[in-house]
């Protein structure tokens, strides 16, 4: 990766369909997310420092840390980007599946297209697994690993919270309903053959902890189960119902009215929430480490 963390962060748009989708998440589950795309701005936000020489020293250290592949920061950006382009493929499969259900003469496609629910559920499980892999790449396995990851999620910085909340709302509740976690667990437990078929799994499996499919499936289930408490906190909010989310989505996605089934797929195809907030997360973690090292 030749791009510096400054270029990656500062290339992010101030406003886009992705930021509007994230603003909608922030309105449903307020977390005071702001879209920081200035490197200096992020240093000040993370450290509270305002002296320009201090900010310069931290920024230069962060640039060097990101450029060193051993730190895992580049790997994390690769993962967040892979999840979004992979999600696009799953979104397409899901959309094709929907079309096959709706249009009778396309019904023959039913046999070859994954059922939307399965595709979405596997997609959702893999995105969370990629989140863990990105965390491990930059932070290691502090304390007891998966258990501490759940604690770290509760402790997480703003970009992590908005991304994981968006994941619950758009990848979970909207396509699969409030009990989407059990769908995801079923998909991982019962449908490993289709997990192997998932283009996203092919992309991220090299990054996931565990050697071999069985270990990775076990890890995936561990992460899903450990995340149940914080996922539950979000799904229990009245504003986070399928109808509530669809209502917000209508505000920025033209033509989604009355097409709830399609909304999740359209969002999946047209936004890059993991990549956008993932770059912000990696930049913030990189700055935090630079502040510790400088």
């Amino acid at each position: 990766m030749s791009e510096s963390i400054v270029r990656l962060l500062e290339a992010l748009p101030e406003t886009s369909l992705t930021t509007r989708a994230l603003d909608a998440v922030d309105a449903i589950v307020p977390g005071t997310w702001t879209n920081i795309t200035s490197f200096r701005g992020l240093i000040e936000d993370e450290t509270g420092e305002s002296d320009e020489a201090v900010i310069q020293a931290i920024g230069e250290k962060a640039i060097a840390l990101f450029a060193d592949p051993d730190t895992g920061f580049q790997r994390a950006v690769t993962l967040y980007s892979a999840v979004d382009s992979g999600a696009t493929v799953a979104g397409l499969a899901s959309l094709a599946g929907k079309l096959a259900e709706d249009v009778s003469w396309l019904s023959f496609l039913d046999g070859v297209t994954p059922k939307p629910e399965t595709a979405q559920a596997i997609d959702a499980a893999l995105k969370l697994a990629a989140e863990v892999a990105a965390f491990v790449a930059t932070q290691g396995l502090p304390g007891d690993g998966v258990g501490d990851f759940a604690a770290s999620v509760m402790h997480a910085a703003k970009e992590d919270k908005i991304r994981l909340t968006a994941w619950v709302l758009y990848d979970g509740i909207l396509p699969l309903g409030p009990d989407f976690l059990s769908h995801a667990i079923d998909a991982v437990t019962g449908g490993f053959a289709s997990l192997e078929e998932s283009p996203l799994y092919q992309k991220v499996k090299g990054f996931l902890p565990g050697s071999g499919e069985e270990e990775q499936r076990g890890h995936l289930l561990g992460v899903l189960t450990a995340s149940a408490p914080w996922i539950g906190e979000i799904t229990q909010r009245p504003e986070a119902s399928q109808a509530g989310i669809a209502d917000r989505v209508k505000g920025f996605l033209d033509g989604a009215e009355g097409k709830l089934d399609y909304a999740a797929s359209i969002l999946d195809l047209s936004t890059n929430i993991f990549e956008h907030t993932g770059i912000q997360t990696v930049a913030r973690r990189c700055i935090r480490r630079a502040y510790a090292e400088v």
Partner: protein
Amino acid sequence: MSLSAFGRSALIAAFLLLSACSKKEPDRWTEAEKTVATATTPATPPAAKPETGSFNTFFPADGTEGLKRVFIADKPGYAEASYGDDFVSVSVTVADEAAKKKFADAKETIKNFPVTTFGKNQTIALAGGKYQVKVTSKRAEDAERRKWLSRMDLAGIAAVPTP
């Protein structure tokens, strides 16, 4: 979107662009990017880093001052824990030559290790001449941060061998 709403949005956008916090300054970082991109071998060899898990036992216990401890990083040569949702965080890193220079004029010590500050939110000890132990907080003053430094097992950290 109505015209007035658009006007309001435009005003807010203009205000945000003007505020220093959101200003992008790509030129400011160009030199550092070039240095990193062109460096084939570092000017000084990188310090050897102890393996992960080397520092965990030297941190103040969970529940110190009634605050919950969350370990947030454990990488070779870098460990960090947060107390009370970042009321304070404590980190241990391998000090490079530039980092060690901060202690050249340090007059104060904690448990015989030199102590200094960085920026306005960090108080730091140099353990064993090779590890920086930093207490960082946006909310706690220097005196409070020193208390947290003294709660770290600095002698234990100083004794961690580098490979």
